[in-house]
């Protein structure tokens, strides 16, 4: 399959860079003491995306058996959704 421009941009370097930018964004939002449901959901989503990148591209779980992908992504999803629900209750 011929690589698209987007595919060419998606490599281990750009993944690392994306994670760095998301981390700095998270820090900036904390520094500015932003709060509220939208902010909480954004920050949790950002962490979920970064964690997903670690599982998929750093750990190398892309293409492994469905069972292990369900276990790893399932852990991530259950933890992040549970945290989000707990925070929504407290808002």
């Amino acid at each position, binding site marked *: *399959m011929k*690589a698209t421009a*987007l*595919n*060419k*941009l*998606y*490599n*281990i*370097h750009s*993944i*690392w860079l994306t*994670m*760095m930018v998301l*981390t*700095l964004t*998270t*820090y900036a*939002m*904390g*520094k500015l*003491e932003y*709060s509220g449901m939208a*902010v*909480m959901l954004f*920050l*949790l989503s*950002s*962490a979920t995306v*970064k*964690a997903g990148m*670690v*599982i998929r*591209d*750093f*750990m*190398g*779980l*892309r*293409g*492994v*058996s*469905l069972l*292990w992908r369900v*276990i*790893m992504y399932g*852990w991530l999803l*259950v*933890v*992040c959704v*549970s*945290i989000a629900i*707990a*925070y929504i*209750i*407290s808002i």
Partner: protein
Amino acid sequence: MLNKTGYMNTTITEPIAEEPELEEPRLLPGDFAIWFFIFAELLVFGIAFISYAVVRIQNVDMFNQYQLTLNRELGAANTLLLITASYFVVRAIHAIRLDNVKGCIRWLYASLGCGAGFLLLKSVEYNDKFSEGINLGTNTFYMFYLSLTMFHFLHVILGMIILFAVAIKAQRGGYSAQDHIGIETGASYWHMVDLVWIILFPLVYIIR
């Protein structure tokens, strides 16, 4: 594109999304047993994170108040260090797949350097807190903050010991492009340490 371990034989600059769809699932990287260990660790951390969020429901004001006393700069710097350490480990694996043993060793030590930086910054943070008389019994927020981060701190140390052992074996010629399962095993554990911190940092230091 796949070697005997079922892993990608790609160069570092090759776009990941270019790889063809596989007919059969790839094997898990590294020793299969490490994945049970990783999952057990993730379960423990997951329960601890959810416990933090649930206990916070009854103590929102306290958690928000004391969260502001944490050093977000050091927390963010440590996140950048761990992500970069994981990236270096990925580079090490790519290097050994190309039979570049020296490059692999260099990337492993670069990763260890980032790990050491993490431990140093965390120690500075703990020193600040302990010198203020803060301990596990100060309040519920600090109990979670100290126990979660210290438990993770111990995992960073264990991860560094594993990576160091892998680097020493690599220096002695113990790994090659055909046989590097030990590096993948150590790398998988190290990525787990990174994965946990990626959730821990916004949860404890930022989200309010």
